[in-house]
């Protein structure tokens, strides 16, 4: 009896291992069926869910091939790191070009460079098919009367923003505040620093990512104003916190350029180079641009942009390249270990 049981158990275990093996290697099957892995950052889930369906349909009609796109979402920097460590993304759609640059640099140092240095010039508009910006989310009725960045330095206003050390979105928040201060103080760097420091003096908690910060503000009810991605802000007012919060658009903000690319070494290995390029190029099509607009990302195509001026009004936007000399420079100056942001936090803790 027992031997019989053992025999059956062995058979079962064998079947499990064999079944599992065929499942694990299934992805290598060749033919007219493609699989794409899109490694993205937190807030793009709704955008790509919609876009993937539309693209799969378009691709089937155009080529007769089927494509299945799987998604992965987490903090932008964490996602870049996973790709560096071996998560085989076919396309990367991250919060900022700096994170993709890191993939280039870290894998180059390892002798297994995944994509070329000039990746950003391979697609139109600096590889940013849609842009976004930072706006304010306040409690409904705006009880603290918050209108612009200078209101955030008031001692009675508590600001919620994530940690720029771990969150891509948080870096945009920080730089937008800095840009506003520069513009209103005749480009005086010292005054801008003091301004930003005053804002962070009133930040009760630094979450690690944009979603976490939104949850702190919306679900846990902390703070008076949330610095948020425009699309995250709309998600809050339309869905989770309907009637509880409202959007305030400041006089000046920063143009955030989430960038996209295919990962050369991975698509070559998977045989998905053509479909990956097609996928990203389709983001620039009228249809792709409209899906971006519908999900509250600013279309880079000005004509499509005009269709969305109700929800995405024009405002003065500074850019990372023109006003901060590019990401590498901005990162070294503000966010590297021991740089400006670390110093500001240390000074605030000493008080």
């Amino acid at each position, binding site marked *: 009896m*027992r*031997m019989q049981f*053992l025999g059956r*158990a062995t058979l*079962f*275990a064998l079947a*499990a*291992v064999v079944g*599992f093996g065929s*499942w*694990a290697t299934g992805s*290598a099957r060749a033919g007219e069926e493609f699989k794409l*892995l899109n*490694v993205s950052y*937190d807030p793009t*889930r709704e955008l790509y869910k919609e876009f993937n369906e539309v693209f799969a349909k378009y691709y089937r009609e155009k080529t007769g091939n089927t494509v299945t796109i*799987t*998604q*992965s*979402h*987490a903090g932008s920097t964490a996602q870049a790191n*996973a790709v*560096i*460590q*071996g*998560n*085989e993304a076919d396309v990367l759609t991250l919060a900022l070009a700096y994170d993709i640059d890191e993939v280039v640099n870290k*894998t180059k140092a*390892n002798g*297994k460079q995944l994509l070329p240095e000039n990746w950003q010039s391979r697609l139109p508009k600096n590889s940013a098919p849609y842009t976004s910006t930072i706006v304010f989310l306040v409690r409904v009725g705006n009880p603290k009367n918050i209108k612009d960045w200078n209101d955030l330095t008031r001692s009675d206003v508590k600001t919620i923003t994530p940690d720029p050390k771990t969150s891509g979105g948080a870096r945009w928040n920080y730089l937008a505040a800095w840009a506003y201060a520069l513009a209103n103080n005749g480009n005086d760097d010292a005054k801008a620093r003091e301004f930003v420091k005053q804002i962070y003096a009133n930040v009760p908690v630094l979450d690690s990512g944009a*979603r*976490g910060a939104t*949850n702190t503000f919306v679900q846990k009810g902390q703070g008076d104003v949330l610095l948020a991605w425009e699309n995250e802000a709309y*998600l809050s007012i339309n*869905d*989770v916190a309907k009637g509880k919060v409202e959007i305030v658009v400041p006089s000046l903000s920063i143009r955030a350029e989430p960038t996209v690319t295919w990962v050369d070494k991975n698509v070559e*290995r998977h045989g998905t180079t053509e479909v990956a390029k097609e996928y990203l190029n389709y983001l620039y099509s009228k249809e792709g641009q409209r899906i971006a607009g519908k999900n509250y990302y600013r279309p880079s195509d000005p004509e499509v942009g005009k269709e969305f001026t109700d929800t995405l009004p024009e405002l003065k936007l500074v850019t990372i390249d023109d006003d901060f000399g590019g990401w590498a420079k901005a990162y070294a100056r503000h966010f590297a270990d021991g740089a400006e942001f670390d110093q500001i936090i240390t000074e605030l803790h000493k008080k």
Partner: protein
Amino acid sequence: MRTAKLNREPRWLKPTLMTVALTFLAVFIFLPVYTIFHEALAAGVFAYFGYFRDPEIFSAIKLTLLTALICVPVNTFFGVLTAWCVTKFEFRGKNVLITMIEIPFAISPVIAGLLFIFLFGSFGWVGSWLIEHNLKIVFAVPGIVLATAFVTFPFVARELIPLMQELGKDDEEAAMTLGAGGLQTFFRVTLPNIKWGLLYGVILTNARAIGEFGAVAVVSGLIRGVTTTMPLYIEILYNEYMFSAAFAVASLLTLLALVTLTVKAILERFIAAQRKIKN
């Protein structure tokens, strides 16, 4: 079964302690468990069952069950093997080995996950070779299984070693002298002696395999519908404001845990009953 009133404790002590303990239990155990099911059913029973038809949720359930299905037999086999080696044979470094078995318990699950990244990631010793040969371990299903197997390894061995040490080698030696072979001795003599302890270890392995979060989160890459287990997917759903769906998956995970606990409780009664018969 009335106990004689020999103790001199004041009359109020027992009810007070009972109330404190029960209140604590209610607040820290019953209330959270109730909340899970309450929130899960917040959008109605119909919606509740609808969540499980979502392909990504369904594949998360499948992956969790597959992981347990592989890890439990494998760890049972190697757990018994290890316990057997440690208790039936004498060799140098035995105590070191016993300590080593506990390493997966001693280190944080995050470290367990990172360990596999360092080994099998593109910077790893074996990882670069594997990737060149199109074999994916981390950021794929094998990594999830490996990480889970690692953190759940000690349960069976840890349960068996003290038990088998207590039992000694006499029964086996007697069987051998009577002409039984190795396998026969194991299945006829050892296994009946250790079966309850073994089952208990298996149940604990299963509980942890189903619920593991930390180690799996590190190696997952969070590829939806591919490398997201139930615990990982609960967090994803929660972060995406789909609270009812998150709690629905959580309730299923809780149910699995409750079933496991019930089986465990029944087993414990059996073990106690068996001991009584023996004595």
